[in-house]
């Protein structure tokens, strides 16, 4: 199964044209050219790619590993929130409306 880090790396390689060898969990986002403003946009893209909804609270993310942990946490939290609904309606394909 593809991990969150692998999926995130694939986005950064394809859309941001970043060389895969620079994409390590401890790589600071700033050194990849993604500053705090760029992180806002990256998270916007992540919402689509991972089908999650970002909370409105600001978050401080420094490394790629931070982003991965944040995304995993959101996926887990949202899966829990939707779990009762999912059991009642097991065919829900997505966490968001199309």
């Amino acid at each position, binding site marked *: 199964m593809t991990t969150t880090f692998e999926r995130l790396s694939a986005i950064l390689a394809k859309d*941001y*044209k970043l060389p895969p060898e620079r994409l390590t969990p401890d790589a600071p986002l700033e050194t990849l050219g*993604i500053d705090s*403003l*760029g992180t*806002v*946009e990256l998270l*916007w893209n992540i919402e*689509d790619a991972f089908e999650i909804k970002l909370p409105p609270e600001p978050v401080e993310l420094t490394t790629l590993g931070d982003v991965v942990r944040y995304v995993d946490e959101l996926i887990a939290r949202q899966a829990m929130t939707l779990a009762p609904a999912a059991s009642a309606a097991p065919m829900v394909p997505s966490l968001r409306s199309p």
Partner: protein
Amino acid sequence: MRRVAISGIGMVSPLGNSTAEVMAHARAGRSGVRRLETPFASRLAAPIAATVRFDEGDDFDAVSARMLDRFSLLAMFAANQAVHGSSDALAGIDRARGGVFVGTGMGGTHTMDSGYQTLYGENSDRIKPFTILMGMHNAAAAWIGIEHDLRGPNMTYSTACSSSTVAIGEAWMRVACGQLDVAIAGGSEAPLSPGSLKAWEALHTVATMDTECPSASCRPFSKDRSGMVLGEGAAMLVLEPWDRAVARGALIHGEILGYGQSNDASHITRPSVEGQAAAMRAALLVARADPHDVDAINAHGTGTQANDRTETAAIRAVFGVRADHIPISATKAMHGHLLGAGGALECVLSLLAMQHEVALPTMHLQQPDPDCDLDYVPNMARAGVAARVTLSNSFAFGGTNAVLVLQRADGAMR
């Protein structure tokens, strides 16, 4: 007032992306107007435009480019080329005495169009986070300032089709009066988004397509002219005090002698003979030149019935009988109407024409118009025209007219 040299030129245009390429095509009368091949073209009455051949991936890293609308990408490309070709005009300057002056009529219209498509076309609220930053008119100037660490005035002018002539003129004034030691000045426009194309079509000012030869659809000063053809591109200049450019051994492309402006204050679109003539007179006055000093004119020459007739009358009003002896080039027939970047590209073409001692052709002028009876250099470049001083005219919707007086680098007027 200090003399001001043009020591750097950069451009990305429908006629090419370097001075050599642009001059070769302009001299040969090759048109950059093409049939649009995008899927949206089927919804246009006249699916034509003057497009640039430009691959952003060659010049910008993908992370940075994500924050740049096409008009900013084009502006950055042109500015970088101008600085690169200026033999280090920015080296050693007090960064607070370096400025950026950019004209654009429509700003980041691709970005805004895309946002509206999301909002209304797809009925989604997923607007991209950078929409404001990419769409704002001052984005191009801001990025040029960041790229070249210029901390003086960072100005954006939006006076429709005269925007970049105004930008160059205002930059010239700041350098001439001693406030700035270097300025990057010019314009950028990327107006070929679906919404913009349809909006221009709705105004009934764009040319009908010549179905046999789409590239000949724009016909300034020809009786059968039917309007303008939209174009995209950017052109930027490096301006600096003449003495500084000479002292550091820079290649000087020409000199700005003056800049004049007027406002029609009469009608939002209808051009005015008085307004256009007033701008030309104002420019000559500032340049301390008289009509006899002018050897050539790059006309605004849009190819609309109203502009070309009015501009002809305005030139006659300013130059009197001498008007018949001044070669007048309407280069928009080849590069289309770059709106807020048009004046900058035409300024560049004026400089190159003087440098090469050629009068550039007004292409596709097949039917003489009794109301347009000057020497427009029809259909073929004229070699051996040793112009020292050229006027570059830009007139705009809204009524802001702007004119530059340019002198070739070895001109003898001063």
